[in-house]
Protein backbone atom coordinates (compact mmCIF):
# COMPACT_ATOMS: atom_id res chain seq x y z
CA UNK A 1 0.00 0.00 0.00
CA UNK A 2 2.76 2.34 0.99
CA UNK A 3 4.58 1.47 -2.19
CA UNK A 4 1.82 2.55 -4.51
CA UNK A 5 1.28 5.80 -2.62
CA UNK A 6 4.98 6.52 -2.94
CA UNK A 7 4.89 5.62 -6.62
CA UNK A 8 1.90 7.84 -7.26
CA UNK A 9 3.62 10.68 -5.43
CA UNK A 10 6.82 10.19 -7.42
CA UNK A 11 4.93 10.25 -10.71
CA UNK A 12 2.93 13.31 -9.76
CA UNK A 13 6.14 15.04 -8.79
CA UNK A 14 7.65 14.22 -12.15
CA UNK A 15 4.60 15.51 -13.99
CA UNK A 16 4.78 18.71 -11.93
CA UNK A 17 8.51 19.33 -12.16
CA UNK A 18 8.87 18.90 -15.89
CA UNK A 19 6.82 21.04 -18.22
CA UNK A 20 5.33 19.47 -21.31
CA UNK A 21 4.74 15.96 -19.96
CA UNK A 22 1.86 14.26 -21.74
CA UNK A 23 1.91 10.85 -20.10
CA UNK A 24 3.84 8.84 -17.55
CA UNK A 25 3.42 5.11 -17.21
CA UNK A 26 5.09 2.62 -14.94
CA UNK A 27 4.91 -0.84 -16.45
CA UNK A 28 5.96 -4.35 -15.49
CA UNK A 29 8.71 -5.73 -17.70
CA UNK A 30 6.13 -8.00 -19.33
CA UNK A 31 3.93 -5.08 -20.34
CA UNK A 32 1.24 -4.50 -17.72
CA UNK A 33 0.47 -0.93 -16.61
CA UNK A 34 1.16 -0.53 -12.90
CA UNK A 35 0.73 3.20 -12.44
CA UNK A 36 0.10 6.22 -14.61
CA UNK A 37 -0.10 10.01 -14.55
CA UNK A 38 -0.63 12.89 -16.96
CA UNK A 39 -3.38 13.89 -19.38
CA UNK A 40 -2.82 11.03 -21.84
CA UNK A 41 -2.55 8.48 -19.06
CA UNK A 42 -5.81 6.81 -20.04
CA UNK A 43 -4.13 4.78 -22.73
CA UNK A 44 -1.71 3.43 -20.16
CA UNK A 45 -2.38 -0.22 -21.02
CA UNK A 46 -1.29 0.11 -24.62
CA UNK A 47 1.65 2.33 -23.71
CA UNK A 48 2.78 -0.19 -21.11
CA UNK A 49 2.79 -3.04 -23.62
CA UNK A 50 4.61 -0.95 -26.20
CA UNK A 51 7.16 0.24 -23.68
CA UNK A 52 7.97 -3.31 -22.69
CA UNK A 53 8.38 -4.25 -26.37
CA UNK A 54 10.70 -1.30 -26.98
CA UNK A 55 12.87 -2.01 -23.97
CA UNK A 56 12.82 -5.72 -24.76
CA UNK A 57 14.25 -4.96 -28.19
CA UNK A 58 16.68 -2.43 -26.73
CA UNK A 59 18.00 -5.06 -24.32
CA UNK A 60 18.43 -7.52 -27.16
CA UNK A 61 20.39 -4.87 -29.05
CA UNK A 62 22.50 -4.19 -26.00
CA UNK A 63 23.35 -7.87 -25.69
CA UNK A 64 24.16 -8.12 -29.40
CA UNK A 65 26.56 -5.19 -29.10
CA UNK A 66 27.86 -6.43 -25.79
CA UNK A 67 27.18 -3.05 -24.24
CA UNK A 68 25.65 -4.50 -21.11
CA UNK A 69 22.10 -3.80 -20.00
CA UNK A 70 20.55 -0.87 -21.85
CA UNK A 71 18.74 1.21 -19.29
CA UNK A 72 17.53 4.25 -21.20
CA UNK A 73 15.84 4.65 -24.56
CA UNK A 74 15.20 8.10 -26.02
CA UNK A 75 12.94 8.59 -29.03
CA UNK A 76 12.65 11.93 -30.77
CA UNK A 77 9.90 12.87 -33.16
CA UNK A 78 8.56 16.10 -34.66
CA UNK A 79 5.75 16.24 -32.11
CA UNK A 80 7.62 15.26 -29.00
CA UNK A 81 9.98 12.94 -27.25
CA UNK A 82 9.62 9.67 -25.41
CA UNK A 83 11.90 8.49 -22.64
CA UNK A 84 11.87 4.90 -21.50
CA UNK A 85 13.92 3.82 -18.52
CA UNK A 86 14.44 0.53 -16.75
CA UNK A 87 13.67 0.60 -13.04
CA UNK A 88 16.04 -1.76 -11.25
CA UNK A 89 14.77 -4.02 -8.52
CA UNK A 90 13.75 -7.56 -7.72
CA UNK A 91 10.66 -7.10 -9.89
CA UNK A 92 11.97 -5.28 -12.96
CA UNK A 93 9.76 -2.41 -14.08
CA UNK A 94 9.86 0.30 -16.70
CA UNK A 95 9.15 4.02 -16.67
CA UNK A 96 7.87 5.73 -19.78
CA UNK A 97 7.60 9.49 -20.07
CA UNK A 98 6.12 11.14 -23.14
CA UNK A 99 6.78 14.84 -23.52
CA UNK A 100 5.68 17.38 -26.09
CA UNK A 101 8.04 19.74 -27.88
CA UNK A 102 7.99 22.30 -25.06
CA UNK A 103 10.01 19.97 -22.89
CA UNK A 104 13.79 20.22 -22.58
CA UNK A 105 15.23 16.75 -23.01
CA UNK A 106 18.12 17.07 -20.57
CA UNK A 107 15.81 18.34 -17.86
CA UNK A 108 13.25 15.64 -18.48
CA UNK A 109 15.90 12.96 -18.43
CA UNK A 110 17.37 14.16 -15.13
CA UNK A 111 13.98 14.21 -13.43
CA UNK A 112 13.01 10.86 -14.90
CA UNK A 113 16.18 9.32 -13.50
CA UNK A 114 15.37 10.79 -10.10
CA UNK A 115 11.95 9.27 -10.36
CA UNK A 116 13.46 5.90 -11.23
CA UNK A 117 15.71 6.12 -8.16
CA UNK A 118 12.72 6.85 -5.94
CA UNK A 119 10.69 4.02 -7.42
CA UNK A 120 13.61 1.59 -7.22
CA UNK A 121 14.30 2.42 -3.57
CA UNK A 122 10.70 1.72 -2.66
CA UNK A 123 10.79 -1.92 -3.69
CA UNK A 124 13.78 -2.59 -1.54
CA UNK A 125 11.97 -1.62 1.64
Amino acid at each position, binding site marked *: MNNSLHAAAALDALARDVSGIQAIVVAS*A*DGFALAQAGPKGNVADRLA*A*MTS*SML*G*LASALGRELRFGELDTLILEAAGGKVLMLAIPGTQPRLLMTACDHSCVIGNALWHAKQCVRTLADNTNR
Partner: protein
Amino acid sequence: MTVREHKIVVMGPLGAGKSTLVQTLTQGKAVVTEARNTDPSVGKEYTTVAMDYGDIDLPGGDRLRLYGSPGQERFSYIWPILLAGAEGAIVLVDGSKCVNATLAGQHLQAIAEHAPTLPVVIGITKCGRADDPVLPHWQAWLGVHAPHLPALPLDPRDMNQAITAMDLLMSQIECNAMATADE
Protein backbone atom coordinates in the same frame (compact mmCIF):
# COMPACT_ATOMS: atom_id res chain seq x y z
CA MET B 1 22.67 -9.85 -58.40
CA THR B 2 20.22 -8.59 -55.83
CA VAL B 3 19.98 -10.52 -52.62
CA ARG B 4 16.48 -10.91 -51.28
CA GLU B 5 15.05 -11.27 -47.82
CA HIS B 6 12.18 -13.67 -47.25
CA LYS B 7 10.04 -13.58 -44.15
CA ILE B 8 8.10 -16.24 -42.29
CA VAL B 9 6.20 -15.44 -39.08
CA VAL B 10 5.31 -17.80 -36.26
CA MET B 11 2.10 -16.81 -34.51
CA GLY B 12 -0.09 -18.35 -31.88
CA PRO B 13 -1.17 -18.10 -28.25
CA LEU B 14 1.15 -17.97 -25.27
CA GLY B 15 3.00 -21.13 -24.42
CA ALA B 16 2.44 -22.91 -27.72
CA GLY B 17 6.16 -23.04 -28.45
CA LYS B 18 6.75 -20.21 -30.92
CA SER B 19 10.08 -19.06 -29.47
CA THR B 20 11.18 -22.68 -29.26
CA LEU B 21 10.34 -23.30 -32.91
CA VAL B 22 12.32 -20.26 -34.05
CA GLN B 23 15.30 -21.39 -31.98
CA THR B 24 15.11 -24.91 -33.37
CA LEU B 25 15.00 -23.78 -36.99
CA THR B 26 17.86 -21.33 -36.52
CA GLN B 27 19.91 -23.78 -34.48
CA GLY B 28 19.78 -21.80 -31.26
CA LYS B 29 21.00 -18.55 -32.74
CA ALA B 30 17.77 -16.57 -32.57
CA VAL B 31 17.53 -13.28 -30.69
CA VAL B 32 14.85 -13.23 -28.00
CA THR B 33 13.05 -10.46 -26.15
CA GLU B 34 11.67 -12.09 -23.05
CA ALA B 35 10.51 -10.74 -19.73
CA ARG B 36 9.52 -12.52 -16.59
CA ASN B 37 5.83 -13.22 -16.42
CA THR B 38 3.98 -11.30 -13.72
CA ASP B 39 0.58 -12.76 -14.58
CA PRO B 40 -0.16 -15.51 -12.03
CA SER B 41 -2.76 -17.14 -14.29
CA VAL B 42 -0.09 -18.06 -16.82
CA GLY B 43 1.99 -21.12 -16.13
CA LYS B 44 5.11 -19.93 -17.86
CA GLU B 45 8.13 -18.21 -16.38
CA TYR B 46 8.98 -16.01 -19.34
CA THR B 47 6.99 -14.37 -22.09
CA THR B 48 8.01 -12.75 -25.37
CA VAL B 49 7.43 -8.98 -25.29
CA ALA B 50 8.49 -7.97 -28.78
CA MET B 51 9.61 -10.80 -31.04
CA ASP B 52 12.03 -13.62 -31.59
CA TYR B 53 14.26 -13.20 -34.59
CA GLY B 54 16.54 -15.60 -36.37
CA ASP B 55 17.67 -16.15 -39.91
CA ILE B 56 18.66 -18.97 -42.23
CA ASP B 57 21.00 -18.49 -45.17
CA LEU B 58 19.49 -19.73 -48.42
CA PRO B 59 21.47 -20.93 -51.44
CA GLY B 60 22.50 -18.08 -53.72
CA GLY B 61 22.73 -15.46 -50.99
CA ASP B 62 19.06 -14.84 -50.18
CA ARG B 63 18.07 -15.01 -46.55
CA LEU B 64 15.07 -16.46 -44.75
CA ARG B 65 14.05 -14.40 -41.73
CA LEU B 66 12.01 -16.09 -39.05
CA TYR B 67 10.00 -13.99 -36.63
CA GLY B 68 8.31 -15.37 -33.54
CA SER B 69 5.48 -13.13 -32.44
CA PRO B 70 4.45 -12.41 -28.84
CA GLY B 71 1.38 -14.50 -28.05
CA GLN B 72 -0.37 -12.35 -25.49
CA GLU B 73 -3.25 -10.17 -26.54
CA ARG B 74 -1.79 -6.94 -25.18
CA PHE B 75 0.98 -7.23 -27.78
CA SER B 76 -1.45 -7.72 -30.62
CA TYR B 77 -0.45 -4.33 -32.04
CA ILE B 78 2.81 -6.00 -33.12
CA TRP B 79 1.13 -8.77 -35.14
CA PRO B 80 0.34 -6.64 -38.22
CA ILE B 81 3.83 -5.18 -38.07
CA LEU B 82 5.36 -8.65 -38.14
CA LEU B 83 2.95 -9.90 -40.79
CA ALA B 84 3.74 -7.06 -43.21
CA GLY B 85 5.71 -8.48 -46.11
CA ALA B 86 5.63 -12.03 -44.82
CA GLU B 87 5.50 -14.87 -47.33
CA GLY B 88 3.97 -17.40 -44.97
CA ALA B 89 3.00 -18.07 -41.37
CA ILE B 90 2.98 -21.00 -39.00
CA VAL B 91 0.33 -20.77 -36.32
CA LEU B 92 1.17 -22.87 -33.29
CA VAL B 93 -1.44 -23.96 -30.79
CA ASP B 94 -1.01 -25.88 -27.57
CA GLY B 95 -2.64 -29.24 -28.19
CA SER B 96 -2.73 -30.13 -24.51
CA LYS B 97 -5.11 -27.30 -23.71
CA CYS B 98 -8.79 -26.99 -24.28
CA VAL B 99 -9.37 -25.37 -27.64
CA ASN B 100 -11.28 -22.38 -26.37
CA ALA B 101 -8.76 -21.64 -23.67
CA THR B 102 -5.98 -21.13 -26.13
CA LEU B 103 -7.56 -18.27 -28.07
CA ALA B 104 -6.14 -19.80 -31.21
CA GLY B 105 -9.00 -18.31 -33.16
CA GLN B 106 -7.75 -14.81 -32.35
CA HIS B 107 -4.45 -15.38 -34.10
CA LEU B 108 -6.07 -16.86 -37.18
CA GLN B 109 -8.41 -13.89 -37.15
CA ALA B 110 -5.50 -11.45 -37.06
CA ILE B 111 -4.01 -13.13 -40.11
CA ALA B 112 -7.37 -13.13 -41.89
CA GLU B 113 -7.60 -9.40 -41.22
CA HIS B 114 -4.08 -8.21 -41.92
CA ALA B 115 -2.81 -10.78 -44.40
CA PRO B 116 -5.82 -12.59 -45.86
CA THR B 117 -3.96 -14.28 -48.70
CA LEU B 118 -1.03 -15.40 -46.60
CA PRO B 119 -0.23 -19.13 -46.79
CA VAL B 120 -0.66 -20.62 -43.33
CA VAL B 121 0.09 -23.93 -41.67
CA ILE B 122 -1.21 -24.85 -38.22
CA GLY B 123 1.12 -26.71 -35.86
CA ILE B 124 -0.38 -28.47 -32.86
CA THR B 125 2.19 -28.77 -30.10
CA LYS B 126 2.37 -30.84 -26.91
CA CYS B 127 0.40 -33.62 -28.57
CA GLY B 128 1.79 -36.90 -27.46
CA ARG B 129 2.42 -39.57 -30.08
CA ALA B 130 1.45 -38.61 -33.59
CA ASP B 131 -0.30 -41.93 -34.11
CA ASP B 132 -2.82 -41.44 -31.35
CA PRO B 133 -6.40 -41.01 -32.55
CA VAL B 134 -5.42 -37.46 -32.25
CA LEU B 135 -7.31 -34.85 -30.45
CA PRO B 136 -10.79 -35.28 -31.87
CA HIS B 137 -11.83 -31.96 -30.32
CA TRP B 138 -9.08 -30.23 -32.28
CA GLN B 139 -10.13 -31.97 -35.48
CA ALA B 140 -13.68 -30.77 -34.95
CA TRP B 141 -12.52 -27.22 -34.20
CA LEU B 142 -10.27 -27.19 -37.25
CA GLY B 143 -13.10 -28.51 -39.38
CA VAL B 144 -15.19 -25.51 -38.40
CA HIS B 145 -12.62 -22.71 -38.15
CA ALA B 146 -9.91 -23.65 -40.59
CA PRO B 147 -10.95 -26.51 -42.89
CA HIS B 148 -8.80 -25.20 -45.69
CA LEU B 149 -5.63 -25.01 -43.65
CA PRO B 150 -3.26 -27.90 -43.14
CA ALA B 151 -2.62 -28.88 -39.55
CA LEU B 152 0.03 -31.21 -38.20
CA PRO B 153 1.30 -32.29 -34.81
CA LEU B 154 4.58 -30.59 -34.10
CA ASP B 155 7.16 -30.83 -31.36
CA PRO B 156 8.91 -27.47 -31.76
CA ARG B 157 12.07 -28.84 -30.14
CA ASP B 158 12.49 -31.45 -32.86
CA MET B 159 14.36 -30.27 -35.96
CA ASN B 160 12.89 -32.94 -38.23
CA GLN B 161 9.34 -32.07 -37.28
CA ALA B 162 10.09 -28.36 -37.62
CA ILE B 163 11.43 -28.97 -41.12
CA THR B 164 8.35 -31.01 -42.02
CA ALA B 165 6.16 -28.09 -40.95
CA MET B 166 8.23 -25.80 -43.15
CA ASP B 167 7.94 -28.25 -46.06
CA LEU B 168 4.18 -28.17 -45.65
CA LEU B 169 4.21 -24.37 -45.57
CA MET B 170 6.31 -24.30 -48.72
CA SER B 171 3.73 -26.46 -50.52
CA GLN B 172 1.09 -23.97 -49.45
CA ILE B 173 3.14 -21.03 -50.68
CA GLU B 174 3.80 -22.78 -53.98
CA CYS B 175 0.18 -23.57 -54.70
CA ASN B 176 -1.02 -20.14 -53.58
CA ALA B 177 1.39 -18.56 -56.04
CA MET B 178 0.35 -20.82 -58.88
CA ALA B 179 -3.36 -20.67 -58.40
CA THR B 180 -3.70 -16.90 -58.32
CA ALA B 181 -3.30 -16.55 -62.06
CA ASP B 182 -6.93 -15.69 -62.55
CA GLU B 183 -7.46 -13.53 -59.47
